[in-house]
């Protein structure tokens, strides 16, 4: 007899549209995207792959600070983002910088955030997003609040938030989904299951067969998606968004994906906890490879086009680094000034102290 765990898991089969060969396996769910939109999706993934490669190189040269590699997760990150509208609100984890960039955060600010400069946390007017979250899961409870606010205002907007497989073990993960469910708030919760929380495999995070089934406990919609299939992620998110703005409540999406690189550039060595075989198995599922095949079969993508994107990415990254370098050095007096709307006495005194120290 099957246990409850397995029976529930059966209700969460992996949703896929494009298989590893780039063939459509789910015609019925094929989204109605124009050729330009499909090419735009590919452009974003190629651009982000280059950004990841350059970021790793810049980090090694000491020209970037904290960096969490993204290669392998482009379909999960950018497919879900592609389903959003400009006014939707993103609550990212620290690996979810690509979504912020495509939502309107200028590249030089992303670099400043990585370097630990306060200007990197200043979202431009009209970019609806929070600074990437460091505490695993904290963004989930906040997303419930953002979404409840949108509902109270009667807006057709959604809040979307991201964590990883490890994040689904946090109390805030459940509290956030439960609150959003109880309030029927327009929220989309995404766990990018890249199989490892730093080194701990997902099998050690939970006894649940799928992460998606965790939606059941909160009474909200849940779906498991092939996170290497950009079209499947796009469709799952688009449908979640439609339900959310129609007042049908939140959705939890698990995307099955993989990060090719280390957890962050701060000394993590994945060979300590992952095998080469596993890496290779997942590289075969690569989101860019399969989407490229799909677009080439359609006759709307070529190597020349891809090279143009790569060159443009490299140029823009170079320019953004230059722009970041040109931003005035951060001072302690800046930090003091950013603590409160009106400075209290203790900080006023400390402001004077550090003004003197910094003018030397």
């Amino acid at each position: 007899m099957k246990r409850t765990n397995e029976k529930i898991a059966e209700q969460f089969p992996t949703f896929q549209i494009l298989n590893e060969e780039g063939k459509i396996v789910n015609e019925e769910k094929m989204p109605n995207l124009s050729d330009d939109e499909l090419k735009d999706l590919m452009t974003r993934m190629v651009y982000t792959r280059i950004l990841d490669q350059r970021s790793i190189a810049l980090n090694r040269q000491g020209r970037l600070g904290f960096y969490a590699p993204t290669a392998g997760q482009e379909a999960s990150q950018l497919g879900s983002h592609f389903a959003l509208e400009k006014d939707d609100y993103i609550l990212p984890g620290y690996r979810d910088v690509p979504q912020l960039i495509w939502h309107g955060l200028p590249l030089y600010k992303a670099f400043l955030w990585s370097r630990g400069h306060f200007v990197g946390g200043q979202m431009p007017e009209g970019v609806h997003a929070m600074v990437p979250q460091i505490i695993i899961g904290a963004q989930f409870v906040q997303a419930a609040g953002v979404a409840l606010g949108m509902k109270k205002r009667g807006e057709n907007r959604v809040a979307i938030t991201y964590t990883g497989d490890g994040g689904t073990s946090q109390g805030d993960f459940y509290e956030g989904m439960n609150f959003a469910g109880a309030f029927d708030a327009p929220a989309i919760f995404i766990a990018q299951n890249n199989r490892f929380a730093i080194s701990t495999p997902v099998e050690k995070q939970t006894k649940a067969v799928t992460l998606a089934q965790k939606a059941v406990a909160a009474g909200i919609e849940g779906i498991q998606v092939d996170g290497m299939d950009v079209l499947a992620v796009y469709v799952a998110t688009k449908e979640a968004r439609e339900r959310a703005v129609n007042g049908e409540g939140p959705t939890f999406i698990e995307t099955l994906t993989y990060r090719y690189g280390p957890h962050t550039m701060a000394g993590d060595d994945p060979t300590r906890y992952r095998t080469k075989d596993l890496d290779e198995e997942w590289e075969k599922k690569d989101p860019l490879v399969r989407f490229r095949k799909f677009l080439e079969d359609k006759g709307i993508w070529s190597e020349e086009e891809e090279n143009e994107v790569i060159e443009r990415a490299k140029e823009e990254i170079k320019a953004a680094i230059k722009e970041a370098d040109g931003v005035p050095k951060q001072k302690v007096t800046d930090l003091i000034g950013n603590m409160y709307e009106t400075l209290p006495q203790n900080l006023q005194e400390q402001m004077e102290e550090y003004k003197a120290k910094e003018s030397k």
Partner: protein
Amino acid sequence: MAQMTMIQAITDALRVELKNDENVVLFGEDVGKNGGVFRATEGLQDEFGEDRVFDTPLAESGIGGLAIGLATQGFRPVPEIQFFGFVYEVMDSISGQMARMRYRSGNTVNMPITLRSPFGGGVHTPEMHADSLEGLMAQQPGLKVVIPSNPYDAKGLLISAIRDNDPVIYLEHMKLYRSFRDEVPEEEYTIELGKANVKREGADITFIAYGAMVQASLKAAEELEKDGVSAEVIDLRTIAPLDVETIVESVKKTGRCVVVQEAQRVAGIASQIVAEIQERAILHLEAPVLRVTAPDTIFSFPQAEDVWLPNHKDIVKKANEALNY
């Protein structure tokens, strides 16, 4: 003017701000239909509707996160944590998130949250209800911590807290909720955050206190008056930021000082005050600055609570030590 208890003054302040600003929303465990376990939100859901005053699922971290999310959408959230001993469940939302949002966003995001919560000893609660945990809050940069000692202050300080664009932890001493009434104006008024109040002027010694210890200090001052001692009593009203100027000015005048807190002794508000005084007024001191606090145990079980809590007799005793130094 009306005679109000502190709990009535708090309800009144909430009503004033719900009326004034449609972005003010009240939420927490049992604050809607039930009007809160102490009736602080009594009648407010009926008056303003479920959209403005509502119950949440039972999870403090969720309540904190909800407040942060709502604040990003232009609301002025007033969440209630049912008892402040439950604050550990929401520490990340408070210290890790709302306190840091302005800083993290390079001064572009306001967090106009007023987190209300009852605390304080003398009412024989189960564990984790009465603890004085204000020191944890005061140590967190980015927060303001307000503790009223009477009905009049409670209303004016709460209105100011709700209007403030930075997160305010507003702590309500349970013993003070219904222990006495004050004249409280029915119209709105504010009391500036971060400013202490000289409750009683005196020349010989300064008592510095907040919350329920203000009443104890006033009682001690009356007792000492019988012996011809003139004690000044300062009610801090806000413990973060501290009104160092008022403290130092008083101590320079009297030359002697006892700092009173209901919390345990180690690393508390009183210690900070003693440090500020010795840095700024040591040459005016006639005696060491002394402290009256609870002992460094976990908050007392109810059976020993009356002895564990500092009282006016402890203050008189310490005052005499300072006076006879």
